[in-house]
């Protein structure tokens, strides 16, 4: 897996964030195009390519969710785009409330604020569970665990989109 190789790491779902950052800085110092501005065209191109990989890899691996998505994809597992069935009813109600708010009916606001908090909480819960699953897979290598992770990631992505949609309507800014 190219992104792990870029840092001299063996592929795994759990990662030491501080160690990764140290490796990132170390390799940036070595390969950044700034270090080759008096070099040949080939050296400059190589520095550019290497740094692009290092940056893409760091961005992907430092975040547990994008790291796991990358790991699954490299293992031939695609993410599904379907809504998790257990959330369907709740999402239906939420969308109704969103419609009302968009239509100018502010009475839906408290319901949305409350939903927002609940979904944010659910997402935090998934994040905690993922940490455990990562360790479990790294220790056992069981395909069933990987499947479980995929399920959790799908759920998480779906909830994240909801949180973002609601935030947009409530006019609060949240980072992804």
């Amino acid at each position, binding site marked *: 897996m190219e992104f792990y190789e870029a840092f001299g790491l063996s592929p795994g779902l759990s990662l030491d964030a501080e160690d990764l950052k140290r490796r990132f*800085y170390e390799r*940036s*110092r070595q390969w*950044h*195009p*700034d270090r080759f*501005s*008096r070099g040949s065209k080939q050296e400059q191109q190589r520095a*550019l390519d290497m*740094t*692009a*990989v290092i*940056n*893409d890899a*760091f*961005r992907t691996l430092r975040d547990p969710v994008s790291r796991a998505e990358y790991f699954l994809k490299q293992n031939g597992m695609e993410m599904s785009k379907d809504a998790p069935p257990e959330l369907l009813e709740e999402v239906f109600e939420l969308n109704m409330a969103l419609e009302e708010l968009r239509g100018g009916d502010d009475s839906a606001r408290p319901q949305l604020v409350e939903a927002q908090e609940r979904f944010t909480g659910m997402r935090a819960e998934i994040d905690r569970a993922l940490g455990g699953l990562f360790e479990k897979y790294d220790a056992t290598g069981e395909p069933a665990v990987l499947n479980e992770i995929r399920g959790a990631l799908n759920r998480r992505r779906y909830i994240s989109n909801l949180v973002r949609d609601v935030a947009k309507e409530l006019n609060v*800014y*949240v*980072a992804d």
Partner: protein
Amino acid sequence: MSTLQIDFGRSKSPIVGIDLGTTNSLVAVMELTGPRILSGIVPSVVSVAPSGEVIAGSEAREMLLTHPDRTVYSVKRLMGRGLADIQDELKLFPFQVGPSSESVLKLQLGERVLTPPEISAQVLLKLKRDAEAALGAPVTQAVITVPAYFNDAQRQATKDAGRIAGLEVLRLVNEPTAAALAYGLDKRKQGIVAVYDLGGGTFDISILRLHDGIFEVLATNGDTHLGGDDIDHLLMRIAMEDIQFEWGEDISNRSDAVQLLRRRVIEAKERLSFAPQTVIDLEYKGRRYQREITIEVFDRLIQPIVDRTLGPCRACIADAGVTVEQIDEVVLVGGSTRIPLVRSAVEKLFRARPHTELNPDEVVALGAAVQAGILSGDVQDKLLLDVTPLSLGIEIMGGLVSKLIHRNSTIPASATELFTTGVDGQRNVLIHVVQGERELVKDCRSLARFDLKDIDPMPAGMARIQVRFLIDANGILNVTAHDLRSGKEQSMDVKPSYGLTDDQVEAMILESFSKAEDDLRERQVREARVEVDAMLAATEKARQSDAYYELSDTERAAIDRAVNELLVVYHSDNYLLIRSKIDQLDQATLPLAERILKGIKIDA
């Protein structure tokens, strides 16, 4: 004299750092002791004199009052923009649009028709010459700063301006990042730093992590059309309404009066940074307009403008993944941060007293010089990791955007996509690349259209063309494509949505260059002569010393010969010839210099 001379121009030529500002520009260079500003502030104003001569800098700024229709300022606002983009600017700025196309905007200055990059190139050329005069050596390479929130077309236009001015632009650096470099240079700083940069025409906010000489930008945000200019316009509008009432005359169509008023308004604005009240005082053709303005009134007027900077600040903090409490320091950059209301707004938002010990007008140029030092290898322990300010995406079905590289990704950054054909025998695939955060193509900024062409005819969906989008360290997009079936590089045409093609830039370079080269040669000769004068004087003085009489006859004869030969070539206009004779005298006086030096040591 070997020991008494400063070694000019004999080492590799220096890379300069340039702050190409909306209102003012500056050039600096990295020296052993640190970055140094090379010349005075150069107003970013360009004028075409009635003689046809193009003038940039302070002289051009004076022409704003005498020849407003032949003079242009704040042209940075037009860089990388199309005719449709600038309708709002046209209401506020006296830009005279010339015969433009949809993608290439042109301004009319007297008889000349110039693009914004050509106009900026005149400012760069002035800076280049000032730097050459100060350094006594030709300058051909530069680092130029741009607002962090500049998009691809605006960056490309800035790079084009450099090329037209005869400068190889080794790197575009974001202004707030450059400021952080200058700021964090003397102390070994660690921690999270926010840079708030409110200039003449642009606003940037960047949050960086400083760690062991690495300056890592975590996030950036801003507005490329927000700055001191907006405050000036506000005050001018009020004054013009007053004047219409008092004089019974609308002066908005008298461009000389408008420019004079603009100057008075700017002066008043600047005074309000230090005084509780001031007077806007205009005298025009025997009539006088005076209006007192207090800091309270001023603050109330500009509050909405200052408030517009706060949204991007909050978004930037969130995107950086930090809290306000985690931000250790706030640095202020740009002339508009001298305004007390701006300072207090920043202090309130970040809950920290902002740093102002570096001159906000100079800090960006100083940082550019540091980056130049990094590129030349003179600065070894520092490294800048910057980000792209805007997401990059491609148009997909339904006019939607598929994001490939997200904003605040560390650059260089890349993404690859696989493309195929939709119809049997299709020979072309068109890729429309956009920049921006919105979901619909029409709400984003069109960057360019890439036409993958000469695809081998085959059934629909069978072609496999891998396209790599790479944003380089300048924040500029590079696209390459490979046909995975044949393994060959895929040919394509690039049509930038805004800006100049490579050929157009080439043509502009040739035009401005021949003149510049003549000027450079002349200056080099002049400077060599100055050096000769100094050398001859120093040699004459050394001839009076005891050390001179300790030299052997051959050594003394060599000095005499070198002096004579130097005198012979003194009036030659061949710079290299003079230089070679300078070197010869330098060599001949070496034994003498050594003896003098030894004498000094013994005495001490």
